[in-house]
């Protein structure tokens, strides 16, 4: 059987870590209570662009793995055997719950669907500085990452770099605050607004209790219902993650799901609600949002379609 005797090899995870400073310390730093809370008036408001306060460092862990192991497997092994303090969200472990979106080698995707074989890279020695020109190396207190790890990695599968999902404030290690996304989804009334009428026979008797919807009508929005609100599309979007005022692809997908549902009666109100400067107008059709969607939604194409619907009305 192929795949049955994959030898163990090694991979090095470079994890961008962050520990928030306890609140009393933050308070001691002061800051005027009257200061204008900056950032975008949309989305997360002040919190979105706020620089997190706390300790930041990069920690390296070198593990024995099989190429088909997922990055989530690796992190769980670290928690169990090396470092129980490493923080990251996870739950179902097979791509349905949407909780474990992070940036892997800078690309937003889910920890549980990313395999080591697909993501491990041999580092380019010239590209080890971050965007500010500094190279953070592990002030790893526990002595977990020592210099020999890097050279070992060259014999193994290489390096995978992990960071929290871009576009959202980091809370701790790989945990980001995705409430701004959920707030934006909630703002667009993401629930069915139907007419409430029961189908009746010609004599006026109740005939059918469910709303009727044929397979063709279902097909118009079914893919959109598969969204798991993981935030990968948002983290991939240069407009959203770049910090500009944009309600974001996830919220527009949620709105589009109801616009295209034959049972929903609030279409006009929904189209009006997204016809704003931070709504469809902010989408630059970059289509980066489509690339990593774990549910296979062509987010960019759906954006295009909903923009067209808004313009047509």
């Amino acid at each position, binding site marked *: 059987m192929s795949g*049955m005797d994959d030898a163990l090899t090694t991979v090095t995870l470079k994890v961008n870590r962050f*520990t928030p400073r306890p609140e009393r310390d933050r308070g001691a730093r002061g800051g005027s209570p009257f200061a204008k809370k900056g950032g975008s008036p949309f989305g997360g408001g002040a919190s979105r662009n706020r620089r997190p306060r706390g300790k930041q460092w990069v920690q390296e862990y070198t593990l024995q793995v099989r190429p088909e192991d997922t990055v989530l497997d690796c992190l769980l092994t670290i928690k*169990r055997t090396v470092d129980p303090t490493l923080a990251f969200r996870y*739950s*179902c472990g*097979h791509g349905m719950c949407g909780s474990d979106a992070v940036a892997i080698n800078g690309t937003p995707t889910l920890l549980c669907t990313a395999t080591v074989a697909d993501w491990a890279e041999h580092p380019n020695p010239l590209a080890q500085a971050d965007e500010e020109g500094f190279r953070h190396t592990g002030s790893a207190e526990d002595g977990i990452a020592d210099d020999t790890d890097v050279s070992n990695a060259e014999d193994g599968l290489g390096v995978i770099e992990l960071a929290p999902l871009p576009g959202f404030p980091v*809370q701790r290690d790989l945990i980001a605050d995705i409430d701004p996304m959920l707030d934006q989804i909630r703002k667009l009334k993401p629930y*069915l607004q139907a007419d409430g009428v029961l189908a009746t026979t010609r004599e006026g008797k109740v005939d059918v209790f*469910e709303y009727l919807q044929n397979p063709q009508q279902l097909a118009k929005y079914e893919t959109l219902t598969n969204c798991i609100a993981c935030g990968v599309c948002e983290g991939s979007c240069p407009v959203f993650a770049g910090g500009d005022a944009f309600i974001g692809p996830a919220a527009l997908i949620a709105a589009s799901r109801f616009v295209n549902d034959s049972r929903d009666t609030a279409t006009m109100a929904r189209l009006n609600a997204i016809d704003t400067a931070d709504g469809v107008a902010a989408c630059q059709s970059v289509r980066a949002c489509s690339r990593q969607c774990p549910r296979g939604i062509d987010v960019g194409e759906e954006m295009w379609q909903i923009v067209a619907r808004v313009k047509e009305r």
Partner: protein
Amino acid sequence: MSPKHIEDMYDAVIVGAGAAGLSAALGALRSEAAQGLREAGVEPKILVISKLQPLRSHTGSAEGGIAASLGNAEADDWRWHYYDTVKGGDWLVDQDAAKLLAEYAPQTVINLERGGVAFSRTDDGHIAQRRFGGHTRDFGGEPVRRAAYAADRVGHQILHTLWQECVGAGVEFAEEWYVTDLVLDGTGERVAGVVAYDTHEGRIHAIHARNVLLATGGAGRLFHTTSNSWDLTGDGMALALAAGLQLEDVEFVQFHPTGLAHTGILLSEAARAEGGVLRNADGRAFMEDYAPEHRDLAARDVVSRSIMAEIDAGRGVADPKDPDGPRDCVWLDMTGIDHDHMEAVLPQVVETVRKYANIDPAHDWVPVKPTAHYTMGGIPITTDGEVYRWTVSDDAGASGGRRTIVDGLFAAGECSCVSVHGANRLGGNSLLDACLFGTRAGQTMAARVAEHPVDDPMDDGTDTTDEEAMAAVDVAARSRGDELASLLSPDDSDGNDNPYRLLADLGRVMERAVAVRCSATTISEALGSLRGELMPRAVSLHAHSDTAAFNQEITAIWEARHLVALADAVLRASDARHESRGSLKRLDFPERDDERFLAHSMIRSLAGGTADAPADTEEQGERGVLWQPVHIADYPPQARAY
């Protein structure tokens, strides 16, 4: 999302935000009682506390369907569904509850559709339905298409729709808060509230509430191999045990036969329906030795037991990812299925195998083993969702027991046991149970809220009944706060252990002892490891970071303690039942014994947490187990054969 401020007193707190918890919230808010309150100008104060953001709940992983005799695909009758449920549960089903389940299933599914669930459709626009194991026509006849489905992700659809409806209804959530204590008043007869840990701030809160509803889901993480998410740590059940309440029928855990080795991720029954064959280490298609007629498509518990029998006979294969480990898998051979057909009808199975086993099911045999899937037992509830105690008076004997309701305490979904699933759950009945009995519990709770709302305009401030209960919650919160501080304080021991390691070890102990089959010997070995090693380790766990915010290890420590306490109850309940029924196979008691065990086990925690030398009393039952007769209404027990 956290509440903007915490009320001094809530009308109701719901713990858990999967199908059951969200249904309960909607059931309460849409009830006549709540409507009446609003007309009187009173807005009920309800808070949903959930350790996950609601959309992450494990309901979202349910794939196949939700059962209801809608009759959209062919003629069906709710009485047939009722019968199938009783039979599937090996007659350990309370028939009054199963009758409600079947009778109100169509209404439940239609309400979900009208709430927005994107069900698959028939050509004429009705909700589409498919066949599911154990669902038949004419009381055990031919298979019937009863499971309403939404492609292969009905759970995702239901979860997201219920959350959306809650957004519309303005439900308030405390997300990523972990409930550490269920607090009853001093008498233990009335609920007082909960203690909750806000994982964002790393802070303990006392939450006072006149009503509490537990909807925390199952406990698949008792086992190493499980289809359950990492969060199914039996929290609600453990909270009930710790509060001195009982659990019902916790010895019954359903194992799905084909979990992908190493991961436990479910490979749908459809893989075998389309021609997949189970093979042992010798390559033999062994199911024909156990179920000559139905072979690989026999009932879930039958197939799981057959796989374990092969493994126990030394004909298993090792998990290829752990080649030196135990030979505790068998092969699922799908190579005989036409390749194009397989891609077309089993896309999810093929994708899972490729992604997580790195092999191609078209060419390679797939290593599988039974995976812990569903806990049939749980917190005992009435058909209205009220949690009760079962007591037997000294002189009355087993038939003279009675249920005493704990005022204001409710439960729903997998953490509860209204006993519609008995000893083995039918596919399609779990989402139904969660939505239907969740709604009912919410409605009952709202009626109780309406009797005595927190914002009662008639309240003259002389009512002091809350004070004692509030004090009880405050005491529990203070003691939990002290514990938190000590878990976070620098540790002087070498501290090599951690909760993640402990959970892995617990899972292996439980799997070896009671997965699919057990005996007095395996149970006693597991109890030995549990009490001799795992419990002491759980007590001495300590966090490795002193920063409270988003300190996942703190939650994991409490989860590990919950699971260890629950494991003790599961093992003792398994030990007490000297028969084989449904999902429970006792190798030393291979037959069903209706004479002695047509009864629900009602197990409590052994006092003081020192389980080594339990003091048995008549009143508390031997080893903390009492027996409650099954409610038989329409279908007397028969042999269970398919």
